[in-house]
């Protein structure tokens, strides 16, 4: 694969992650809740994933 293309992807990913660091804490909490929803979906569809921790559930919070 073209090395320039690979470094372009790496740079663009770095930029994306840098911007996410700068998000407000409130927006970061929204991301966390979204990630919790995604993981719940993965667990539902992938029986091999552990669900042993009872407190691992989606936060029902208002923004």
């Amino acid at each position, binding site marked *: 694969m073209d090395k320039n293309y690979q470094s372009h992807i790496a740079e663009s990913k770095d930029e994306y992650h840098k911007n*996410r*660091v700068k*998000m407000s*804490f409130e927006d970061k*909490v929204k991301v*966390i809740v979204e990630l*919790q929803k995604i993981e719940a979906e993965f667990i539902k569809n992938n029986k091999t994933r552990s669900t042993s921790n009872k407190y691992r*559930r989606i936060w029902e919070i208002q923004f």
Partner: protein
Amino acid sequence: MQKTLKRINELLELGIITNYAIAGGMAQFYYIEPSITYDLDIVVHISDEEKTLTPLTKIYKWAEKNGYLTEKEHIIIESIPVQFLLAYNELVKEALNNADNIKLFDENTFIFKPEYLMAIMLQTGRLTDKERLARFFIEAEYDKNKFLEIIKRFNLFEVYKKLIEVKNG
């Protein structure tokens, strides 16, 4: 989360705890990109008169009185599992005493400074902590001199050197 912080502040107002700070993953995500977590770690200090063999009893009694369920060591406060932890060693005690007073969700609250969180991650040394610490080096704004001063005082400099050697291959 505003409601959760409000209730935690109530513990201060009631004198059940004398000070507290957000620690663990949620504190880390204040400084770096967030990833998944399910709980909120709160390091607390309890006044000397309240110290017994079971120092967190008053918090659990408060939770029960307010109808908050507990699951193992977590108290579910307004939908968020909160784990109250005593400042378990000198480094954590110092982190708590130097916590920053900030506003989150319009609530006044306290959070560990990044340099202390990094030192604690170094001290704990779990795989997750090492991964997060690597992210702090890349993403967080922190005072490197202050971080080095802390880890030298708490005999963590050698651990740091080893980690950096691994990181740099």
